[in-house]
């Protein structure tokens, strides 16, 4: 399938009587950055492990880059994963281990050394290249684990909780690194931090009880193009004036948060057009403290 990086169909993974994956189907388009959102034990990690070929599935099918399920002889260098809770060999050195992984992917010694150095620089660990992994802090180890995913720019990268344990500065560095890869690589991120998913991803999949319950673009899920929230100083006194400004829209006022939610159809225009029509009417009645489009991902997830 052209334009599709990963297709999983009806994946089932049983651990005894429990089903970690229970008919999990998900399609990840090429070049997208997809966020997996779900409760603890929903099956996000299991799905990633299954795609990486680490798990023996009870049933279901996986197609990775149009070449069937993961096989190292086919997918080595084209696919990478940051597995959760998997430690790198403690006695290894970051520079050496990245070089060795690059060599295993088939890179020449020069290219392997170059990419290892580049990746260490990208995660701000160039000065620790020759220290043992054992001597690195938790956050530093996480950055080395992150770095190994991008050796040789694989087409598909799965990241399980990539920002776990990182300080704000390093987390921001990783976010910027990932944003720079949007559209160039297919990246799937599993995270409990919905804000991270919201700021990084173009697509989102909700996973519950081993199944994908909903998947779409972030914009569609958060209804970013059909809903605007205005935080106001006071409740607008003349709702009719607002309705007159945007005839097709509906308005809902929440007194606790002082939020006025405007929901509209695509025919009414985009968010900018709605703002142009509505803001004058609102400002005539009260002060506008903040404007935001759509739901937050958290609101969308909790409301789903």
């Amino acid at each position, binding site marked *: 399938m052209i334009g599709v990086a990963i297709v999983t169909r009806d994946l089932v993974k049983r651990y005894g009587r429990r089903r970690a994956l229970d008919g999990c189907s998900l399609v990840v388009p090429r070049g997208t950055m997809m966020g997996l959102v779900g409760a603890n034990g929903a099956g996000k990690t299991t799905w990633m*492990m299954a795609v*990486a*070929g*680490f*798990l*023996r599935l009870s049933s279901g099918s996986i197609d990775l880059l149009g070449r069937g399920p*993961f*096989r*190292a*002889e086919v*997918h*080595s*260098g084209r*696919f*990478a*994963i940051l*597995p959760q*809770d*998997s*430690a*790198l*060999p*403690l*006695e*290894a050195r970051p520079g*050496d*281990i990245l070089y*060795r*992984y690059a*060599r*295993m*992917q*088939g890179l020449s010694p020069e290219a392997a050394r170059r990419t290892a150095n580049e990746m260490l620089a990208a995660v701000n660990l160039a000065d620790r290249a020759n220290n*043992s992994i054992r001597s690195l802090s938790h956050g530093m180890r996480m950055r080395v*684990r992150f770095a*190994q995913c991008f050796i040789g720019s694989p087409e598909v990268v799965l990241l399980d909780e990539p920002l776990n344990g990182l300080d704000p500065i390093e987390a921001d560095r990783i976010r910027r690194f990932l944003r720079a890869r949007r559209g160039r690589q297919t990246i799937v991120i599993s995270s409990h931090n919905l804000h991270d998913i919201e700021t990084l991803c173009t697509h989102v999949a909700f996973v519950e009880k081993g199944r994908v319950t909903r998947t779409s673009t972030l914009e569609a899920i958060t209804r970013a193009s059909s809903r605007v929230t205005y935080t106001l100083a006071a409740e607008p006194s003349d709702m009719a004036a607002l309705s007159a400004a945007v005839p097709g829209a509906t308005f809902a006022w929440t007194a606790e948060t002082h939020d006025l939610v405007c929901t509209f159809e695509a025919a009414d225009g985009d968010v900018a057009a709605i703002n142009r029509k509505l803001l004058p009417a609102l400002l005539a009645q009260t002060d506008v403290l903040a404007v935001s489009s759509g739901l937050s991902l958290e609101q969308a997830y909790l409301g789903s």
Partner: protein
Amino acid sequence: MKSLFRIGQVAVAECAGAVRSRRVLVILALYLLMAVFCMMWTITILGKMEAELSKVLQLPETEETGIVSATLWKSAPFQSMVKSGLKNDLVYNDIEGRHPVELIYAWFAFMCAPLLAMLVAGNRVADDLKSGAVRYALVRVTRLEWTLGKYCGQVMLVAFALAVSALGAWVVAVFRLSGIGMFELLPTMFDWGFRAGMYALAWLGLALGVSHVTRSGSRASALCLLAIALCAGWPGILKLLSRWLDCQWLDHFDAIVPSSAALSLWRRSFAPLFTGGAHLLTLGLTYLMLGHLVFSRRDA
């Protein structure tokens, strides 16, 4: 070719990782020390025994340890004693007249090769499975390549340990024995080290095979020690079984433990050395593949 290349990469990573791991370094250092002390101790004992023998036989006293032993090789009762101990005339013919120091090192190397293999390699795979480190490799190489790479890495490591121990034993011999041709002895010590390395091929396969079936490093090490004990007792078990069940053909199952091929490695001629080596390599790879079979069918 790509597969061989990837196996090589895993082997190099394994070897480098093992050398950097403190546990393996300690075991290698201990092994070297054991080889050195074994040589020192046996040379001392040998020297004392020879002095006593010289006195009893009223021979002229000599400071050259090994001279009386060389004479002993010529005595018929001594020959028959060694023959009955070996239970293999061919091996006896091949080692007859060899310098005792050389044979002491050979005995040590063969005796300790299983333990060295088990202690160095026993937990390497299990530890990687437990920590999840294996996953970083498995998106780059196949499970089979990973297993074979681990094996090759450990073979390189044990070969290094045996070479260093042979050198250490030789240095001790040079310092303690003034009368021997030291440069003639060095290649023979390495030769015995090489033969012990061939013997270790099977034990390494067994150690890594066992290590594939559990995720606990300490459990893997314990299982390895159990495997050594089982292999040591295997001929006895077979004898008992064949007697009880009256099945003589059961004796042929002796060939499934490494010790069955050990004596071939004490032969001088190429043919038995080659067949013995091939037997041990086959055994090692069989143990390894049995472990791999379990690993390939389970979650990583």
